[in-house]
Each structure stands twice: as C-alpha cells, then as structure tokens.
C-alpha cells in the first residue's frame, strides 16, 4: 500500500503528444510506471512509444478502453481547467496538474466541480506524486531518490528536488514525495496529505516544505497538534524576505503578506514540529 498512487495505478496523460507530455510520459514508462493511455484531441487512434501507448481524443474514451484512474496533465495553461473538468467528468480518481499559473476564476470553476465528485486534485503547478521504486506520476526525476520511510510534501517542485538530492547524498530513503503546487487556488493541501501519510504504514516521518502566502501551513500545524502522531520536520522558505526591499516584489506577486512567514514558523514550533532553518539541516533533524 502507498498513498495516492501505487503499482496498480492506471496512469494516463492528458497532452501526451505535446513536447513536454511526450518526454515525461516516456520517462515515467522507462522508470517502470504503467502508462495505460493518453489524450490529444484530434489524434485519437494514434499510438506513441512504438505502439506501447494508445492515444484517444477524450478522457472518457481513454477511461472506457483502459480503465485509467489517474491522470497527469501537461496541456497548456489556457486549456488546464478544461482538462481537469474533463477528468472529473470521466471519473478519474487522482488528477495531477503539472501545468501551473492557471487563472483563479478557472480554478474556482474546478473547485466547484470537485465538490460534487469523488476526484482528488493535486496541483496545479504540481511536480507530481512519486512513490520511489513503485510508481511515478509526474515530472520528479527518478534518480533523485531511493525507497525508504520518509515522506516529503512540498509547495515547490524545485525545493523538493533540492531536498531529495540532499537526502539521497545521505542515503535517506523516501516513501512518498508529493508536490502540492503553489497556486492561490488549488487542490489538496498539506492537511489532506498529512491525513494520508499518518495512515500510511510505509511512512515513519514527514517533511513539509512551505513558504510565503496562504494559510495552508497554519492549518497543517493545527492538524498536526491534534491528529498527527508521527514526527514532522518543517522548512518554511523565505525567513529573511520580510524586508522593505522585497515589498514591490511581493506586491506584484498578488500581495502575499510577508508577516505570515514568522507566524507559520511559530505555529509549527507550537505544534511540536522540528523547524529546519535550512534544507541542509533536515538530515540531522530526521536523526533526532
């Protein structure tokens, strides 16, 4: 058993014939993840990867033929909400949107549709979900991790890669890496991931990577205090950014309030979480 995806997951890719979709689908396949099909409107009936993976016009056709239950989305930004809505409509269980920067009102339409469905959305702007040695749905480089018992949940793809690289050097194995994305309106948050990981027998310790803006870290801290028995390590990037020189930068980035960073760090400490000052410090905190 593992969380969100496992060896039995039937993964499909929306936008499988595009440059990025094709590249990463092939990488997932080579890494041993079962890609059962993909979509590319107008190219239904084609095959990709030397006849290994069938292409369909619609997600529904793909699901009908292949029983796909997980979809990884690589379509352009302007088509992302439509792609997610299509997956919800076709009854896909886990929808992972690699594409990011989706207009907020598009995401509101998606959130409204998600409420009346059994689908879970990861992202937008997610690097995917990786269960090392078992399955990879997204763009996480396989060679950055070895199987183990530590889980990572990160708002940022790049910082997850940074940490994976640091942990691999120290031969610390991972049970799951989930990229929840950094969009203002998005799918699953830290709290939902914590619920899954608390129940996952393969996960012993959990690492959270957060940052400026939003309330997700605060909610996570409250949830940890009340419901999580496993040790949690957290890193909140941007501790030094609450300076006046950064004001215009954050004003342009949707007016993210910088004072949230200190609040988040304190909330984690209050919840008994080990707070890391740097990513490099995390291996030592895991040994405690």
């Amino acid at each position: 058993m593992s969380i969100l995806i496992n060896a039995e997951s039937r993964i499909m890719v929306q936008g499988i014939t595009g440059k990025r979709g094709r590249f990463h689908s092939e990488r997932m396949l080579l890494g041993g993840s079962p890609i059962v099909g993909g979509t590319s409107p107008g190219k239904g009936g084609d095959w990709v990867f030397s006849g290994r993976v069938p292409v369909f016009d619609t997600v529904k056709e793909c699901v009908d033929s292949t029983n796909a239950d997980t979809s990884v989305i690589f379509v352009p930004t302007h088509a992302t909400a439509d792609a997610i809505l299509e997956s919800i409509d076709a009854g896909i269980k886990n929808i992972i949107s690699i594409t990011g920067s989706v207009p907020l009102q598009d995401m509101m339409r998606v959130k409204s549709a998600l409420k009346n469905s059994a689908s879970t959305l990861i992202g937008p702007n997610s690097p995917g979900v990786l269960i090392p040695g078992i399955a990879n749905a997204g763009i996480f480089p396989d060679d950055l991790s070895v199987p183990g018992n530590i889980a990572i949940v990160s708002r940022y793809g790049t910082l997850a890669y940074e940490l994976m690289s640091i942990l691999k050097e120290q031969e610390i194995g991972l049970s799951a890496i989930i990229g929840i994305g950094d969009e203002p309106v998005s799918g699953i948050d830290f709290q939902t991931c914590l619920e899954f990981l608390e129940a996952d027998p393969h996960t012993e310790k959990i690492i959270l990577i957060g940052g400026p803006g939003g309330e997700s870290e605060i909610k996570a801290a409250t949830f940890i205090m009340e419901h999580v028995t496993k040790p949690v390590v957290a890193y909140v990037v941007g501790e030094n950014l609450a300076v006046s020189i950064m004001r215009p930068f954050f004003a342009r980035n949707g007016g993210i309030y910088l004072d949230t960073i200190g609040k988040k760090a304190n909330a984690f400490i209050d919840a008994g979480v080990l707070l890391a000052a740097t990513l490099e410090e995390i291996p030592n905190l895991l040994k405690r």
Partner: protein
Amino acid sequence: MKLQEYQAKALFRQAGIPIPASMLASDAEQVKRAASEIGFPVVLKAQTLESGRGKAGGVRIVNKDNDVENISNEVFKLEINEQPVHIILVEKAFTFLKEYYLGIYTDLDGGMPILRVSEGGGATYLEPDSFFNTKIVDQKIDINGGLHRFQIRQLLTQIDISPTLWKQFESIALKLYKIYRENDATLAEINSLVVTHQQQLYALDVKVSIDNQALYRQEGFVDAFDPSYFGWVERKARKFGVAYHQFPGELGCIVNGIGLVYLTLDLLISKNAVPAAVIDIHGGSSVSAVASSLELLYQDERVKAILINVFGGMTMCDEIADGILAASALSRHKKPVFLRLKGTNEVRALETLSGLNNLSIFENTPDLVEGALEYLKGNA
C-alpha cells in the same frame, strides 16, 4: 494587480453603474479646466496605488474656482508612501444621506467569490481592520451557478437599508459581479456606495484588482498598468514568458520556479546582498526565453555578474545550456556567469557548456550564492 481608480471607474461606467462625472488631469491648468466643466464643488483625487491616500492629503474638496490652482498644486507635490502623484481625478462632489460597502472578493482557501455588504462606507477588503465596528454580511457565490438576485436580497434584509432601494442595489451588485467575472478580477468593490438626497445609489470610490495569472487573456490591462508596477523591462520579459523583478543591486539572477527564487533571494538577503534583477523562467522554459533573459542582464549596466540557478524537473537543463550558449555567442558584453544546473538532462547540458569562458559551475545553491558574492566583493 491593482487598477488605478480612474481605470476601475472606466469599467464601472461601461457596466452602467452610476458614478459621479469625472475627468483626468496631469497639471494644475488641466485640473482648473476640468473643474469648471464639471461644476463646483469638485473633489480632487490623487491617482495612486498606495494605501493611505486620504490621510496623506490626496483627496481634497474644492468649493470655488479661486482655490483650484493652490489645492491642485498641493496635491501634485505630495508623495504618498514615497510615490509621487502624476495624475489627479477631478470628480463632481455631492453630499449624501448614507453610505454602504458593496464588494466581491476572492476566498482563496475556499476557491470561490464572496459577495460582501456592510453598513460602513470607506472600508476595504484589503484592510480587514477597516470594517471594525460595522455590520458585515457575506454570501458565498458558486461560480458555476452565478450570482442570483435572491442571494443579494438575503443580505439586504440583514442590514439597515430601505426596501425602496433594494432593486437599485440588486442591479448594481449584479453589474459588479459581471465586472468581476469578465475582467478576471480578484477584487471588485464599491467603498462607498452612497444614497443621494434623490434616493439614488452612486458608487463614489471603487477598487478593482486583476488576477496576474489571467493577464494573458486580459492583455488590454497590461499596457494600462501603472509604470511603477510594470516597467518596460517587465513588459518585454512578459512577452517571452518569464517574470522579471528589478532590485537595486549588482547581481543578475535567473532562476527556475518561485520556490528556488525564494531560496536564492533568502540566501542573498541573509548575506546582506541585494540582486539587480531576478528573472523567474518558471518550469519548462524554452532556449530562446533563456537567451532573451540573459540578454536583458547583459544589457543592464548595473549588472556586474550573473547567477543562474536551475534545478530542472519540467525545465530541461540541455535547453538552459543551449540558451546560455546562444546568448554568449550573440553578445559582445562579457560578464562572469555563476551557474548551478541540475536535474533533467543535466549530463548533456554540462557537456554543451564545457569550454565556455567566464563560467563557474557549482553543485548546490549555497555554494553558488557564496561563489557569486565572493566575486562581487573582490571587484567592489
């Protein structure tokens, strides 16, 4: 991205929401002409995106012709949060009986628009404290179902407002929601919505913010934005799909993804260093976007050294390398480049770059930042 008041009011006029007559002016002479055309009394409103305009003296009532020149000169001399005043909106001033707040804001956590009505005028969603001691009522809106008249009435029955005004209020709220939806707004508010002696509702002050992530389909706004928010370099960078942020330092930075941008900036600032610019090339940017980003930094005379920090997932390192090669072949400017390039296709990428002069390669972010700053110190 906040719109200037006059830009927001143009949307209101278009939508058919009653607003006072107004004209724009960029010097005292124009203010004078506008005022006599509109008729006294008028209110002069400094156009600024900074908060605290009223307290800073940026909103002034003028009752008679003799005072116009002096008062407008005073307003043009103001600096509101260190920002100069370039434009004044000259608007018809009138007295009113009562004021309300009517706004549509975005609940990011819930992922839905919320209609808010309050008995207090002058409040704004952007400053939660401004609603202190006033009655607030909120209505969630399902964006797939839209806003309905009965939902607005449900709010009106909870506040002190005459039923004779309900129809007008409903109509304004529906038009406000239309502004919110059609322009990809994250906030559209009227503060204050006033009741005149003739029992007419008027929108005196309004605020509209547009979703940055929707600007690709709201291109009309990009050129309209205040230059202090969106300078020409930012506009140019947007065209090739990267986000450019200017700072007053000497190090030009190219980074993929906002997480790594935060980390790189955090390390720089913790060492008391300030970049000259930070360019976020996001995930999966093209060879030409990298080359164009580098070209911006090569041309920027303030930039003494360039830092490139990439950990590629979606981003392909070989494309970054090709971009670096293309820019250095084209450019006559020689600036040292400090590079950390890891992730997808990194082996091929580093092969491409072997033999390039002026390039130092690092294994991780802390070493990269350290290396670049040491160079700058040595050349200070």
